[in-house]
Every structure is written in structure tokens, then in C-alpha cells.
């Protein structure tokens, strides 16, 4: 997984609550057996109409946000299914950071496993960033080491993050390799585990 520390780009303002994983990646695209290639299906039914034409009103289709690496949305982002295809699609499309007031648990976990930084800010702060980004393209710099989001206008927002996941993202660690270091403990646990015949 790619390490992540500083990401600077224009934000993509997605002013919606409860964006669910069915919207992020629709079920017709879950049949692939690879981890890559999901970006073109991200938000498919919002991005395209029934005939496959781009919907010009949808934020991802607006030229001013092209190349954005930072997605900003409202409460409970990523609710619904456990499909990791959702963060795979987000990453494959080019986003590295998602800013929202809250995230659904499984989605939140899935982000850390894929080198995506989920940033939780207060609702008022997200509203402010969204408002700026909706008015005109707004660039921010996200700094994981410092745990800050700094706007082009000098506004600074601080966020909290679990120290374990912070280390993982900064270093791009393979979690399984880390866990193998506890092999003795896993073995010891298995020996005393409660099992009924």
C-alpha cells in the first residue's frame, strides 16, 4: 500500500449525507476478481444517465474538479455494505483523502487498509469547506503528520486520528506481516481456547 502524508489538491464537494456503498460502487461492478479497475465505475448512476452519457450536473463531471484527490462529503459516509470495492473505486479514481463529519465503521476500516486517509472534522467545519468549494474551486493541503487541513485562504482545521492507523498510513505497512510477529501469542491462545466437542 502507498504511504500517505501530504496531499494538496482542489476539493470535490459532494454535499450529501449517508452516501452509501451501493452509490459509491453499484452491484453490477462487483463481479470482478481483481482489486483494480473500479475507478471508472465510481458513483456510476450519479455520473451517467441510462444511456451512459455524462450527467453534467454531477460534481465529478465538472471540469473545475478534475484531478482532485480530496473528496468532501456529509455525515455517515460509506454506510451500507462491507464491499471493499468502494474504497478501491475511490482510490482508483484518484482520491487519497475523504473529509466528512463521520464515516460508517466498516468503510472507515477499509480506507486504512488501502492507503486512503479518512479525515473527520466537525460538522460546521465540513459545512464551511463545502460552501467554499461549491462557490469556486477551493484547494486545501492535508497533512497527516501534523493532522491538519489548511485551506488556500489560510483556514486551518485540526483532526484526530487513531495513532495505530496513522503509523500504518504514513509507512504504508502490510498489516498481515506485522501480525505474523505475534505468532507465538496466537499459538498460545489457540492452546487454551474454549472448544466443546
Amino acid at each position: 500500500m502507498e504511504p500517505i502524508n501530504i496531499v494538496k489538491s482542489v476539493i470535490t464537494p459532494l454535499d450529501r449525507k449517508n452516501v452509501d456503498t451501493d452509490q459509491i460502487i453499484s452491484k453490477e461492478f462487483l463481479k470482478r476478481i481483481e482489486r483494480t479497475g473500479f475507478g471508472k465505475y465510481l458513483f456510476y448512476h450519479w455520473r451517467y444517465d441510462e444511456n451512459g452519457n455524462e450527467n453534467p450536473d454531477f460534481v465529478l463531471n465538472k471540469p473545475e474538479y478534475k484531478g482532485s484527490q480530496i473528496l468532501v462529503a456529509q455525515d455517515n459516509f460509506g454506510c451500507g455494505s462491507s464491499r471493499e470495492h468502494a474504497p478501491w473505486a475511490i482510490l482508483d479514481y484518484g482520491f487519497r483523502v475523504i473529509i466528512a463529519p463521520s464515516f460508517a465503521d466498516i468503510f472507515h476500516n477499509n480506507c486504512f487498509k488501502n492507503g486512503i486517509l479518512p479525515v473527520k472534522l466537525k460538522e460546521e467545519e465540513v459545512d464551511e469547506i463545502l460552501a467554499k468549494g461549491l462557490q469556486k474551486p477551493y484547494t486545501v493541503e492535508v497533512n497527516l503528520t501534523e493532522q491538519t487541513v489548511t485551506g488556500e485562504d489560510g483556514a486551518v482545521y485540526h483532526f484526530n486520528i487513531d495513532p495505530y492507523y496513522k503509523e500504518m498510513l504514513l509507512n504504508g505497512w502490510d498489516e498481515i506481516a506485522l501480525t505474523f510477529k505475534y505468532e507465538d501469542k496466537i499459538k498460545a491462545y489457540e492452546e487454551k481456547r474454549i472448544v466443546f466437542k
Partner: protein
Amino acid sequence: MAKNIIEKIWESHVVHREEGKPDLLYIDLHLIHEVTSPQAFEGLRLAGRKVRRPDLCFATMDHNVPTKDIYTVNDPIAKKQMSTLEKNCAEFGIQLAGIGHPDQGIVHVIGPELGLTQPGKTIVCGDSHTSTHGAFGALAFGIGTSEVEHVLSTQTLWQNKPKTMEIRVNGKLGFGVTAKDIILAIIAKWGVGLGTGYIIEYTGEAIRNLSMEERMTICNMSIEAGAKAGLISPDEKTVEFLRGRRFAPKEEFDKAAEYWLSLASDPGCTYDKVLEIDASEIEPYVTWGTNPSMGTGISGRVPTVDDYESETDKQALRKALEYMGLEEGQPITSIEIQHVFIGSCTNSRLSDLRTAAQIVKGRKVAPGVRAIVVPGSYSVKKAAEEEGLDKIFIEAGFEWRNSGCSACLGMNEDIIPSGERCASTSNRNFEGRQGAGARTHLVSPAMAAAAAIEGRFVDVRNYLKQEQQA
């Protein structure tokens, strides 16, 4: 000190604990299906890793399987996904109940049926509705594919301990009101984010009175409430359900039962948060919007913009109504439907089919309505056929299918066409869930059956009353 069941199970599964890190938890049962596992197995192969405990894994196929002719998979990509699971299970030595196998079914239906699901176990699956297994007093939660890979290779997971919540359902349920209505009412009352960061224990008189199958319906939708998991303390019903099941303990069953019962939350234990709801207030529920909290009782109406304060909420209502093709303030009983789907891991067990059959018996599906029943597993299907439920449904004009996820998410051919409306016993009414442009209304099996007969939503209690008088 008095402990709740969540703390008891958590503490007994900690393999390693260290300041500044999540706990490393041991996983007792890993359920696997075709959609969220291929990339995990591929990851193992690329890294030259093995499956640590194939004996603690069990796999099935459910999401993609056709439900008409089970051996004809027309979609080549779906076919590849299924054959990939076959290959992976063979290569890594994992038991698989594939297409045509007598143990096949929706992963959350077969786990309890086979007795794999047991109190006190930690259970994971690359599927958010793993919370279903919590009905047995297990700590069961959905994980992503990277975590599937982690469990395959280490049989453990790093997990931050979530907060605990008690949802107490007091009193008795009214006549004709079901477990599905309880959970829809809970989510409508407190919203889809109510459980974010928590594990929920459901308690109270109404919960204790539920059968195991009904408890599964409640725990199933914990994820729709945003919770990591939802569970119910085991009692005698739990023990009796498991007695004699294939993977349940045999010689040591009594010892196991004693241990299971000891896991129930202690009197006087505490939780980080407690919510209470009165069961007698709950009506049969119908969702009108595009997330499970957008619902109301059958006597209610679709809300109006004035019912909401914030601009975001008003906007969310407008968007939902536009998608659903509904008017503000419209009575729920005026909503006409074109499809009925009785199935999914929420409501496709034998008791669900019995309830629905009781309502459709001797009646006909309304003209213009397409209704299907998709049993949750091969064994539910067989048991239902032995009771003659299939005939009741077929005579009423329902299609009787083979088991799988089917129209719950429409990965196979069972899709609701754009702009059409479905009364569905499943758990998600998200935009496009049952097909692009499809409009889903979540209801109980009884309400779905009554809607099939009337072609619109009706209060199923009137049906049941007629039945009683007849």
C-alpha cells in the same frame, strides 16, 4: 463486577493487548462467499501465504447464484467469480457449499441452520449483515476484503473496542406486528447513524419473547443502524435451537449450554449508552425513502419538507421523493406496487415463509403484480415444500425460486426495472439497490404478502383479523 455480554466475549478473545494499539482478537468462525473473497485469496497467493485454520472457515455461494435454473449462469463474469471460489476452496482446503449442495444458501441463513453459529463465538464474514449471527449471543461483524485476507492468514483481527449500547424494547408487541417492524421502528426513530462506533445489545421483554428466527431479523439490520454489531444474550431458546444441529457440540452439549448461558449480560451491568422504546407503540412499518430510516407506520404519511428543520434534511427528503416518485404528505396506503420480493438474509427463513403463506392462502396476487419467493437456503426450501408452502404460493400466483440473495441486491437476473416499485422483505432501500432506478419499500413478510394481494400497501392486521374470525 457486573459485565455485559459484549465485554465478556471481547475480553475472552484478546490474543494481544498493548498501549496505543487496537486489541488483537481471535476469530472463531470465518464465513466466506464468492463476492468479497477472490481478491483476498489472490493476496495470499501473491505473498505465498497459507490459510491458517481452514477448519474454522466455511464457504458458500449466494450473491450471484441464479434462482430459476441454478445450473445456468448466463453472466460469464459471475460464473468466473463462482468458479474462482471453487478453486480457492479446493486449493486452501476450505469446506464449500456451492451451487446444488444441500447446505447452500445465504451465508447468514446457513450459519445458524448448520449450528456453526454459537454463543460466545467471534464470527466474521466479508459481508455487513454478519451481525445476524448476534441473535445467538455471538460477537459477529462484517469486514472488508483486506480483513478477510488478514483472518485467512492469521485467524485474528486488530480491532478497537467499540462502545456498548443497550436498546431496551419494553412491553409486548401488538397483534400482527413483527420483529421487522421493531427494527425498522428503531432505525426510523434514531436514524441510520444511531449505532456508529457501537455494538448494540437488544434487551427487554419484547426481545425475550421473540423466536430465534425473529431475533436474527433484528440483529441482521444492526448495520442499517450503523452499528458494528448487534446481539442478544443467549437463553433457553438459543440452547434449544442449537441442540442437535450438525456443527453444534455433541458429547459436551450440556457443558457448552451451561457456558453459553453464563455469557448473558449480568444483572446490573452497564453500557455506554441506553435507548428505550415501547413495543406496544410500534405499528407495521413501511419505508418510503432511500435509506432504512425513512419509514413510518402503515397508518402514516410520507413527510413534508416542513417536517424538517435543516436545509440538508429538506434537500435529502426532496431527493428521496424524486427518486421514489412520491408526493409529500401522501398516505402510505395509497402507494401502489408492481413487485413483491419475499427473501434475503433478513426475512427468508421458514417462519417468514409460513407467515406470508398464511396470508396469501386461498387468495390471488393482484393483476399487474409480479411476486417472487426466494427461500434463504436449500434446506429452508425443502422444509417449506414438505409443508406444502410452495403450492400455496404458486396457486396464489407467486414464483417459487431456489435459494440465494436474488433481488435483495440484484446481482443475478432478479432485478426490479427502473421506475417500478417493490415491496421487499430485504434490508436496504438505497437508490438502485434492486436495480438501476428501482424503488424499494422495506416491509415485513406479512406486509409484503398483503401488498401482493392488494397491489398496494395495506394494514396486514385487518387481514389477520379476518382470518381469526373465519
